[in-house]
């Protein structure tokens, strides 16, 4: 059950133009930076990217925007990127904004084999336009929910802290974020990690994503792990 591949290039060998990708991470935290670099190098185009954010101008998904590889972004917040804004305003880039919890839960639904979920997020707003709504009793009060569909994606690309050779994944701190749900939701799931250990080296009680969900694992060549908002206090 060896899921290890040698490199990012090998991991993405069958990602072709017009693929739909999920990319883990929140801001620049826990993003699959080595896979993004390989996608930029490969130059695949017309990508639909499902990712909470779109990176910054010179890091994360921003790098794929600069090279015009992205056709459509499905995100909850895309704020920190001037090139993104330019492409959006010029109509080169299509953007679908959805609530963050809806994004997370539509990934979960996919990984858990649930075709649709109900959420109250967006009820009464433009997010609800064209969507089926339904009322349910919650704590004795009628409440309205939107039906949102599970995501379909060709590839999920996630960043974990450690993996074993079976593809079991462990995440670190808030770099976990969307990665576990996306890992469950890809038709093919690619995980880049900081360290690969032998099967049996991870405590089976501590695994966040079981290897059954993961198809390919590789060790990232290097991690910049850029900080977006460095906030500190004096000692």
């Amino acid at each position, binding site marked *: 059950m060896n899921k290890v591949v040698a490199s990012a290039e090998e991991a993405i060998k069958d990602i072709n133009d017009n693929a739909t990708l999920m990319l883990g991470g*929140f801001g620049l935290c826990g993003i699959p930076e080595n896979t993004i670099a390989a996608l930029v190098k490969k130059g695949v185009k017309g990508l639909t990217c499902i990712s909470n954010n779109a990176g910054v101008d010179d890091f994360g998904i921003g790098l794929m925007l600069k090279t015009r590889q992205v056709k459509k972004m499905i995100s909850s917040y895309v704020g920190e990127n001037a090139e993104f804004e330019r492409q959006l305003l010029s109509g080169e880039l299509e953007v679908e904004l959805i609530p963050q919890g809806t994004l997370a839960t539509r990934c979960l639904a996919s990984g858990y084999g649930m075709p649709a979920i109900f959420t109250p997020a967006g009820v009464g707003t433009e*997010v609800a336009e064209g969507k089926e709504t339904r009322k349910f009793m919650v704590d004795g009060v009628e409440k309205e929910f939107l039906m949102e569909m599970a995501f379909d994606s060709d590839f999920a690309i996630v960043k974990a802290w450690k993996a074993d050779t079976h593809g079991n994944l462990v995440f670190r*701190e808030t770099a976990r974020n969307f990665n576990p749900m996306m890992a469950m939701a890809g038709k093919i799931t690619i995980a880049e990690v900081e360290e690969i250990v032998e099967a049996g080296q991870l405590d089976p009680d501590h695994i966040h994503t079981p290897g059954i969900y993961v198809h390919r694992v590789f060790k990232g060549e290097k991690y910049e792990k850029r*900080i977006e908002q460095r906030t500190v*206090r004096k000692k």
Partner: protein
Amino acid sequence: MLDKIGIAKRIAREIKDGYYVNLGIGIPTLVANYIPQGMNVVLQSENGLLGMGPFPFEGEEDPDLINAGKQTITTVPGSAFFDSAMSFGMIRSRKVDLTILGAMEVADNGDIANWKIPGKMVKGMGGAMDLVASAKNIIVAMQHVNKANESKLLTKCTLPLTGVKCVKKIVTELAVLDVTAQGFKLLERAPGISVEQIKNATEGRLIIEGDIPEMKIE
């Protein structure tokens, strides 16, 4: 009139012992600094953390440890990390006792608009729509009027909505107000602010009953 710190301090007084609290970006983030010492409060960050602590000391920033505003943070003892699905799961199932966030406009029925200005670049709603749709108690920190001195406490929001009938309380530079079935109910005046000034700054239905005390903030 309250400054941002004043608004944060006043909101901090709404937090009760044992609360789990989600703080939005901006003024709400400042509220953390004014939670009384010794009070047991756990801060939830919707990117996957319960038990958020203060900013790290210089040189101790950890790129894997950020809050929903993407700022480097720390954890406190008893913290827990989880994924975004569970994070919004606990938000939707109303386990978070109090949500504090900013707003561009609030209507007197509790509608809130805080994510989109038509004609301007739209950055996205992030987790705001999930939070306002689910939270059992929402306090909004906002300016009472805009730069043109127009009220942002309205009969009806003019901007695209983030959520409907959800805001419970509002703290502005001028006042503290509850959102009731009859409209904004004035609870407290900011230091030096008269009822008349608040009336003039409020476009939505405003209920003024009896003497309105001046708020106390140290």
